[in-house]
């Protein structure tokens, strides 16, 4: 239970919390674009925190560097994937939900 393990526990639990909010967002938000907000942002930060936590747990070694590379990769890949899906949705005519729809 040295210092690094405590740090990794902190990061991992933070990551899990943001995963939970992202998943809740995916379920509760009314419309496709708002759901993308939750998964796009939530998952990016959650994956980043979990990976950094696991990197701390792995201690300073080659696998720690590999994990950091995966973290940087996901940090750039996830928003692009969200962007690609939302662009495809808009192009094929998914109209975003607006306030009036709620009152309808």
């Amino acid at each position: 239970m040295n210092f690094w393990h405590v740090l990794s526990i902190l990061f991992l639990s933070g990551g899990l919390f943001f995963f939970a909010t992202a998943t809740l967002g995916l379920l509760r938000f009314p419309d496709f674009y708002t759901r993308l907000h939750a998964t796009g942002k939530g998952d990016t930060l959650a994956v980043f925190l979990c990976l950094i936590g696991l990197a701390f747990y792995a201690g300073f070694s080659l696998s720690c560097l590999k994990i950091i590379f995966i973290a940087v990769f996901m940090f750039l890949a996830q928003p692009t994937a969200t962007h690609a899906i939302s662009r495809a949705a808009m192009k094929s005519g998914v109209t975003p939900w607006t306030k009036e729809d709620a009152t309808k």
Partner: protein
Amino acid sequence: MIDFLYGIGFGLCFLVLVVLYRGIFGPGVYNRIAAVSAVGTKTLIILLIMGFIYNRVDMFIDISMVYALLNFVGTLAAAKYLEMEK
């Protein structure tokens, strides 16, 4: 520490099940892709945690790297395909 990793792993598996609800009942195709992409990121972390639990770290890191790459390419391909399907 190891049972903490077990906890995180089971938590993520439960979250995957919850996301699958959106994946199955998602009104349109796009909700399903968003759900699949979300499941993809979660399984990436589950893979790594399994690697640490069975302390075969090097093997599982390569597998999870490939998984992240192909998840990204898969989402882009699905988005590309659906974009043209008017």
